[in-house]
């Protein structure tokens, strides 16, 4: 895996936009002392290379999904990607990664009621072909978490930036 080349201006842009994505290019350009065209071009490049994505983050309260759960899955090794794909289709599941460790898939999900977690998520994962075992742990208290640094996958990147003003 090769890392992208980012310069100071890219990093400054990421910082500014991580606080509020609805600042206009004009305003960013003035603040950083570059032209609007430079800002527009940089943002476009960062988006195309899937280094940043713009989105709306809503609080836990809105979806009433207050709790986070980690579901470790032991799945058939020769079919692990397909199983991981199937798990990713379960609506309550927010993140899925193939891992090397005691479990070969980790699913992270949000839930409101314990019943939903079991019936709509872990039970559904357990019923998928190729899944041998699931083990769930529920986050009781979060000490650190930054929702702004993520893995931007092809599926999760929203549409490219069209606009200027906000």
């Amino acid at each position: 895996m090769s890392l992208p080349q980012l310069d100071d201006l890219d990093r400054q842009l990421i910082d500014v936009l991580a606080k509020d994505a609805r600042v206009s290019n004009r305003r960013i350009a003035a603040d950083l002392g570059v032209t609007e065209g430079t800002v527009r071009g940089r943002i476009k490049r960062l988006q195309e290379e899937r280094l940043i994505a713009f989105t709306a983050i809503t609080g836990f309260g809105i979806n009433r999904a207050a709790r986070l759960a980690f579901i470790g899955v032991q799945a058939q090794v020769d079919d692990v990607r397909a199983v991981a794909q199937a798990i990713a289709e379960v609506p309550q599941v927010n993140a899925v990664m193939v891992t090397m460790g005691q479990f070969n898939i980790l699913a992270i999900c949000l839930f409101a009621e314990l019943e939903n977690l079991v019936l709509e998520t872990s039970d559904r994962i357990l019923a998928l072909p190729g899944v041998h075992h699931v083990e769930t742990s529920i986050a009781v208290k979060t000490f650190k978490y930054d929702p702004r640094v993520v893995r931007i996958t092809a599926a999760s990147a929203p549409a490219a930036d069209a606009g200027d003003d906000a």
Partner: protein
Amino acid sequence: MPIMGQEFVLDDIDRAIVEQLRNNGRASNQQIADTLGLTATTVSTRIRRMEDANQLRVVAVSDFSAHGYNVLMQVAVEVEGRPASDVAAELAQFPEVFAAHVVTGRYDIDLLVVLHDFDELPTLLFNKFGQVRGIRSILPAIAVDVIKYKFDVAPIEDRAAS
């Protein structure tokens, strides 16, 4: 947009605006207004109210690689002889620890650890985790492929504090 006690309830218009912003956080108020048949002023007012109630942030999220992180690991920690919360609070101080939760189950703490390179592992293990009292065992899982990573629901802290 009724506010019941401390709870902030979104109506259909709010939800429609949020949906538009999820697809493109940089869509202009006018673009959103045109799509939804509203005025730009309504869109702007609604967004501000949701932001002020700490229920919405429209932000750029950045990829781990944009920060130079090549290695992503989930690490389960088993604690002994010390409250798990104390151990988690201490582990959360390390910059490599990207997320830290106290959890139910066989292990007591769930961490997301990010590294620039596997070369950083010895320092992390010996000089950092090794110095934290109360760790009984560590069970890592190295992320090999991230299939899905949805990032649009999260705890939102007050802007003044962030």
